[in-house]
């Protein structure tokens, strides 16, 4: 039997995870029914789509709030992360001054920081954006610094023999060489960005999926909580794929 090789490659790639996911969902569904578990304790997976649709308007509104926080946080992380990375890569003084602080910023536990940020910045979007930024700028900085520094010195010398200025060395060698590293960092950042926003919302907010989850949980609307969680997961995955797509567009030489 002849199979289109590309279709079969897609199958080989996606069949195992999808099959496993389906198996787990079936086991969950069966366990709930066979064990006669109360739906408020553990709803069957089949109840989740219904719960999402029932509360569709509310969920959409909260999703957009969370998405806004994540998008703003990522944007600030990219800007801030690149600036810090360039400064660290080019100035040993700034590196000595800044790098320890950058690392230290990652050691402060979020559960400690989040309530403080709420006190400082209120219950709105801002403290969540700050939390997202705190989580996201670190992988961007670390990876981009590695990329900017990892440039082959021979390549820089070659351009110097052409009479290149420092700016030209940056623009023509260091920056393009660092881009793939930056994107590695951004992929990690995108995947974890949602965590920061939701955490802030759980601590104190008046909207967003984290707020929704905190609001619905004491009411035992467990299926709705699972629905919101599913949306959060999808949000992270979509952001990750968006970064991948941007990478594909902007780094054509890396296409497989």
């Amino acid at each position, binding site marked *: 039997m002849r199979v289109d090789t590309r279709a079969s490659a897609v199958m080989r790639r996606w069949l195992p995870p999808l099959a496993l996911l389906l198996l787990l969902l079936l086991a969950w569904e069966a366990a709930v029914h066979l064990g006669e578990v109360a739906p408020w304790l553990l709803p069957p997976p089949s109840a989740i789509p219904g719960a999402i649709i029932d509360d569709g308007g509310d969920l959409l509104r909260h999703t957009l709030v969370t998405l806004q926080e994540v998008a703003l946080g990522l944007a600030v992380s990219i800007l801030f992360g690149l600036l810090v990375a360039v400064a660290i890569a080019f100035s040993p003084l700034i590196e000595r001054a800044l790098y320890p602080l950058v690392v230290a910023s990652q050691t402060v536990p979020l559960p400690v920081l989040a309530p403080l940020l709420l006190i400082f910045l209120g219950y709105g979007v801002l403290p969540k954006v700050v939390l997202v930024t705190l989580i996201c700028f670190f992988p961007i900085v670390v990876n981009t610094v590695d990329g900017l520094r990892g440039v082959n010195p*021979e*390549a820089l*010398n*070659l*351009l*110097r*023999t*052409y009479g290149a200025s420092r700016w030209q060395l940056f623009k023509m060698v260091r920056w393009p060489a660092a881009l793939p590293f930056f994107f590695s960092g951004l992929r990690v950042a995108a995947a974890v960005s949602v965590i920061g926003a939701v955490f802030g919302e759980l601590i104190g907010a008046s909207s967003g999926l984290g707020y929704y989850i905190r609001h619905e949980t004491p009411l035992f609307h467990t299926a709705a909580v699972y629905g919101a969680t599913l949306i959060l997961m999808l949000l992270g995955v979509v952001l990750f794929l968006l970064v991948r797509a941007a990478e594909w567009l902007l780094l054509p*030489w890396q296409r497989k």
Partner: protein
Amino acid sequence: MADLALQVKGVSKAFAGAAGMIQALLDIDLGAAPGELVTIIGASGSGKSTLFNLIASLDEPDSGTIQIAGEATGPRLGRVAYMPQNDLLFPWRTTLDNVILPLEVRGVPRAAARRQALPFFAQFGLAGFEAAYPRALSGGMRSRAAFLRTVLAGGDLLLLDEPFGALDALTRSQMQEWLLQVWERERRTTLFITHDVDEAIFLADRLYVLTPRPGRIALTTPVDLPRPRTPEMLTSPAFMALKAQLLQVLRHTPGVEPVPTIDEEATQISDPDSLLLRRR
């Protein structure tokens, strides 16, 4: 001798190494007439690349002078086209955009630089690969692209630092013949570093032997083989005599020994790589 394209006089250079100062170059005298192809042969560690860095003015000598076209002063950067050992094609640039790099650095707008470079692609065996990224090129094509970039860099002097060192023996000999064709058309003064005795003789008008630690000129000799050079010359009596002389000098160089061979001629025919010099 004021009209020499390159004149290196009494140049010395030392570096701080793990075990004290290392004298990379000691009292080097070296010259190239306009349009001449000069090869420098030496084992690794003989300071060949240091010499090129000095000529390209990426570094300054401790003593001595380097003149290009009779001028000792003024920056040599931009007057010398340097081709490093590694082809150093940038993976993020297409072949065309790689070769125009020196023009872009000099401020030529990209479109104009591309127009200037395109006519060379056929001659350099790169036609059809203008838009390809370097990873799609073969080793020989990468070398030719790097060489085209060097040619487009302009300058009065081409400095080629073991440009074919990473290629397999067959591709290397093709590249040598091709390089000679281009050189005979352009007649640019060329300094070619190699550790391959055959390559050094085959290409050269004049040949310098550099000994390591400290790097100094052990021998300088004209190569009087007729041009154009052909692969048959590699086994001609004149070629073999010169090669024997060079190997003799290189063999008595401290710190270097040729790969042991039983019969030089037989080995030379069966495996041209076997006479490469190796550091002990």
